[in-house]
């Protein structure tokens, strides 16, 4: 990947580090509950909701709710497109690092 094409691989939906970390976890798991993601990313509930909404809007994540009331849980899963986008974005970051190109 050339530095120029590396920049093309960057995905605007994944430039936020928290969203990238969420996609990284979900790309290597069958899914993850809201609480697991919140704990791993070290973010507030409202922040995580915002980040996951952005990923869902991009079509990279789906959400499934189970249970009712206090026992309810929301489980997120990465879509095939989401996993591909994550791999592309990650490869682009690595290429930029190797090529010494600044994306900003």
């Amino acid at each position, binding site marked *: 990947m050339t530095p120029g094409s590396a920049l093309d691989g960057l995905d605007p939906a994944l430039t936020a580090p928290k969203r990238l970390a969420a996609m990284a976890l979900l790309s290597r798991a*069958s899914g*993850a509950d809201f609480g697991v993601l919140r704990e791993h990313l070290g973010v507030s509930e409202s922040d995580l909701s915002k980040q996951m909404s952005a990923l869902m809007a991009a079509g990279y994540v789906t959400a499934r709710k189970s249970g009712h009331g206090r026992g309810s849980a929301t489980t997120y899963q990465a879509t095939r497109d989401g996993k591909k986008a994550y791999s592309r974005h990650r490869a682009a970051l690595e290429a930029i690092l190797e090529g010494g190109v600044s994306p900003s």
Partner: protein
Amino acid sequence: MESDEIRDTLRAADRAEAAPWTDYPPTPRWYPAAVGVWAALITLALTSLGSEIRLPAVLALIAVEVGFIRWYVRYRKGVMPTGPAPREFRHAILAFVGGAAAIVLGAVVLATQVDAWVAAAFVLIVVPGAIAWYERAYADAARRARERLS
């Protein structure tokens, strides 16, 4: 985005990719013994039961296993690792697969050459020890992976 920032972002991504393998709740203490009993029962069901009750017995044991897996996924809060494991886990996983194959082979030899009850007793004794070893090897691999990625 500066190079240091990209490095930090990739490092955080590495930690997140490894998290389904390295961050998990403690395995219940009853798990090795329960797997041993289940394995011994399915050994008996497959080797000593009459054909008319063999299938229902095996299906019932499979249903128990499915129920356990469903509970375990909830226990792990929906996080079951997929894809390649971090390199620290490879030895434990290969040993697990090899050990499982050796135990199955041993059980088949005992059941066909000696007695089904001897095969079940072998499984009942060996499986909990093997599972307990794997749990320790897995925990050690998780610790080393967490240290490398910290």
